């Protein structure tokens, strides 16, 4: 069981999950625990010879009932590939899986915030290459979603609605515009190629989305992921998080995905160093408008 300690200086919880030190680390592909269990092959986490999408309790959980949840979401039984290369139907099904897990985990009394996310690439700490994401059910409201609620108060309404409106009006940082979903590089992004994927209509979570909105969300996320890969013609590492309303009953929030890629060039990583860690202030050497223009071209090339 993990231990929570409150860091008074930062005003935040720190999670000590010391059992995670021994988790599986970059196994060779013959011993991938996220592959299906094939006849004559090694027993994996998924004891069937084939599957489409699988979700299971993390063997090395940061949170576990009755103190939250940690699940693994395996996108496919094929070891190679990525979220961006899933078939459109599979990516759409994944949106329904996300919705299902958000609903079930969010209904639990020990879960106050459900965060769906994917870490892609060793640059962001991936320990398994098989296409997969994770879901954490936090037993508290973490700082980032809490800040989003503060932004709502500061802007006098839904912050993502207001920021989307500003981006649409400005236009310079837009990446993808569709009927229900828009992707853009934020006006004040932290990462060189950070992108946000936002529902046009005010949807607190996946639960309130219409089926066509879920389909389009999958489409836009995949187009963005493939555009990232085309940007430097290499698998592009990123952290993708889905932000939704906290599950404490207030239903305040606006469904959107945020993607934080650590690359600032094809070979150079952005490190969180003195200013970022010590002061909490990001210093970027790329203007968002220039990043957006470059990324738009890459998305067009990848289409």
């Amino acid at each position, binding site marked *: 069981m993990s231990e929570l300690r409150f860091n008074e200086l930062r005003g935040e919880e720190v999670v000590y999950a010391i059992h995670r030190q021994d988790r599986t680390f970059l196994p060779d592909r013959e011993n991938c625990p996220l592959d299906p269990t094939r006849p004559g092959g090694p027993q994996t*986490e998924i004891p069937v010879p084939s*599957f489409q*999408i699988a979700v299971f*309790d993390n063997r090395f959980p940061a949170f576990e009932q009755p103190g939250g949840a940690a699940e693994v979401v395996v996108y496919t039984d094929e070891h190679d590939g990525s979220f961006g290369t899933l078939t459109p139907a599979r990516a759409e*099904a994944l949106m329904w899986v996300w919705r299902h897990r958000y*609903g079930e985990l969010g*209904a639990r009394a020990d879960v106050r915030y459900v965060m769906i996310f994917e870490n892609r690439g060793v640059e962001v700490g991936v320990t398994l290459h098989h296409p997969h994401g994770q879901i954490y059910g936090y037993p508290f409201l973490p700082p980032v979603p809490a800040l989003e609620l503060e932004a709502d108060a500061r802007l006098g309404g839904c912050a993502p609605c207001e920021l989307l409106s500003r981006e649409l009006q400005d236009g310079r940082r837009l990446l993808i515009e569709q009927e229900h979903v828009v992707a853009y590089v934020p006006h004040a992004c932290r990462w060189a190629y950070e992108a946000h994927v936002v529902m046009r*209509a*005010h949807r607190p979570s996946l639960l309130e989305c219409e*089926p066509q909105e879920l389909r389009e969300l999958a489409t836009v996320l995949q187009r963005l992921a493939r555009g990232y890969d085309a940007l430097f013609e290499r698998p592009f590492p990123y952290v993708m998080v889905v932000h939704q309303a906290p599950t404490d009953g207030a239903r305040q929030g606006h469904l959107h995905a945020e993607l934080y890629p650590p690359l600032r060039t094809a070979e150079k990583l952005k490190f969180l160093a003195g200013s970022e860690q010590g002061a909490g202030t990001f210093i970027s050497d790329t203007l968002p408008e220039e990043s957006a223009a470059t990324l738009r071209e890459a998305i067009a090339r990848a289409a």
Partner: protein
Amino acid sequence: MASDSAGRRSPQRPGDAHAGEIPSRAEQGPEQGEGPPEPPARERFGEVWLQRLRKDDGRALILYQQLDRDPS
């Protein structure tokens, strides 16, 4: 709060009937008695089927399948 731009929705807690989706239904569970164990009952959730299983160590496992690839 939880209304969209057209004001079509009311506040809702996760897990409360899963707004806006095809109603869930569970299929028949395994027959008791003879033969090998039947696969667990399937549930429909929107555009996916799901089957709930338990791993040997007790951890939950859910297998999802796209609706358009329903094998039955």
